[in-house]
């Protein structure tokens, strides 16, 4: 366990955290402003990944494929909103959970029908395939650096929009008091649509970036979605800042835990015990973290309510 290795895993954790953030930002805004639980958010992530694979293959061009995938996800998101989610805005959370659960089943099966149940592999253009040299002496994939750059830039843009623009002000006000914003004469419908659209686009972006690293398969959305929930619980509903902080924490803790908990344990307790307990504990780490945060701050770290 060298420092170089630790740093590398730290970068991996940051990269994973950044992807969690892209998902969490959209979801927390939808939750905060529209008071809507949308489990199908993970399906949009999946759709983004699948579309990227399909469209890059079809057009033969990485940028075209990615751009079209993003657009496609946005369109799918809008369609879902109009067809299913509109009817759920005023329903209680239980109904929203159940209905969007039904959507997940639908989407997972739909992609299985089109692409089969096996994993698809997304390819990368040559210029994204290499490695760069870290100051620690080890080499790190260019693509992961690209993800970090894109993710952090998006975070920056979001931060700017939310804190420095009129739209962002409406978003923050809406997250804090939805009815009031409506009563002030703001076009709530439009605000909802914009927020939802942005969320869908972010999920699609996360999905298409995830393709080359993680397996593109039915159900991939749900795996990350649950971790996104943990991020939101830790960060606080409605807060983009909370989503970023929560995402980085969860990403780093999870990655470092998986990489180093077993060896660390092995140096404290017997290696065979660490062999068994290590992976189990590592997978439970972020949930334990969530429980601890909740014990101290039941509404999350940066709750807007």
């Amino acid at each position: 366990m060298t420092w170089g290795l630790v740093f590398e895993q730290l970068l991996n954790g940051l990269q994973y955290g950044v992807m969690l953030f892209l998902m969490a930002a959209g979801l927390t805004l939808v939750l905060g402003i529209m008071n809507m639980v949308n489990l199908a958010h993970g399906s949009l992530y999946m759709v983004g990944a699948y579309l990227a694979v399909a469209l890059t293959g079809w057009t033969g061009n990485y940028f075209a494929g990615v751009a079209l995938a993003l657009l496609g996800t946005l369109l799918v998101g809008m369609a879902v909103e109009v067809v299913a989610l509109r009817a759920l805005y005023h329903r209680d959370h239980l109904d929203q959970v159940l209905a969007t659960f039904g959507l997940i089943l639908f989407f997972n099966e739909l992609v299985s029908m089109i692409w089969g149940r096996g994993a698809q592999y997304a390819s990368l253009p040559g210029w994204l395939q290499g490695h760069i040299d870290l100051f620690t002496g080890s080499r790190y994939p260019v693509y992961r650096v690209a993800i970090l750059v894109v993710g952090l830039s998006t975070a920056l843009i979001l931060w700017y929009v939310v804190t420095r623009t009129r739209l962002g002000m409406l978003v923050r006000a809406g997250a804090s008091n939805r009815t009031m914003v409506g009563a002030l004469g703001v076009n709530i419908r439009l605000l909802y649509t914009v927020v939802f659209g942005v969320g869908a686009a972010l999920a699609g972006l996360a999905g298409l970036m995830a393709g080359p690293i993680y397996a593109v398969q039915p159900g991939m959305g749900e795996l990350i979605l649950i971790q996104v929930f943990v991020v939101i619980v830790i960060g606080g509903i409605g807060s983009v800042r909370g989503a970023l902080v929560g995402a980085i924490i969860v990403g780093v803790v999870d990655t470092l835990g998986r990489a180093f908990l077993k060896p660390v344990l092995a140096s404290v307790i017997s290696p065979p015990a660490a062999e068994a307990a290590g992976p189990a504990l590592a997978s439970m780490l972020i949930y334990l973290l969530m429980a601890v945060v909740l014990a101290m701050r039941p509404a999350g770290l940066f709750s807007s309510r």
Partner: protein
Amino acid sequence: MKLRLVLWGLAIALLVALPPLAIALGQTYYIDLVRRMLILSIAAISLNLILGYGGLVSFGHAAYLGVGAYSVGIMAFYGASAGWLQWPLAVGASALVAAAIGAVSIRTSGIYFIMITLAFTQMLYYLGLSLAEFGGDDGMRLKARSQFSGLVDLGDPVAFYYVALLLMLLSVVLVYRIVNSRFGMVLRAAKSNDARTRAIGFSPYFYRLAAFVLAGAMCGLAGALYANHTNYITPGLMSWQQSGDLMFMVILGGMASTAGPVLGTFALLLIEEVLKGWTEHWQVVLGPLLVLSVIFFKRGLAGMFWKPDA
């Protein structure tokens, strides 16, 4: 009220008559199918206690199916296949896990509660995956069915069926008594109006936690039964898809009603059976059906016949 009792009587009579009928018609598959419905009904009944009557949207109830099933499986793995030991342990372990998860989760409410219960179940799911010794991702076979010192042989499909039926009916009665007892009244009051319940002197947290533990324990029993039914135990039993299924069984049947969870379980599993017969991609049909049922069919099946209990 009389009508309800008559309908229950009819339903029970039908269920009792099913095995001999199925054997006579040469369709023994249905004994298996309905037995599965009976076992999962127990899980749905337990969820109805906290969800339908308590208003706790627990998206992680399948965790206790898993804990119960793995308790039986792990004990059998180590040679302890006495049902007298396994099943109480399954129930006890589930109760303990429910107490731990509930203690933390019930301090929150609303959307946080939903996400947290989901997260904790996922944690258990991963725990199950990582236990390589017990099959990990692939799960494990049940080494031997639970033995009950010759009293009943779970290897006999009909005998097992009647055990499941009996336990299901006991669960129905138990939950019925609980929700109409003093305890149940407080639970239901807290769901109806939390502030008012505090104002008259009840602290809802403890009642909710107790209900949560009871529900977990009952679901653990269902898990023990399920392990014996499928002879195979996988972490998938604790997946959130399974939790979602359980919630639908409660909702479809009608929340806060005695017959609801049973009706819902039978309905959902029947629909799945029919759809599976049509296409291997049955979920692409089930998904939208579920969405529509939520949007248009809020009161559930029991709600079609009579108003749900307050």
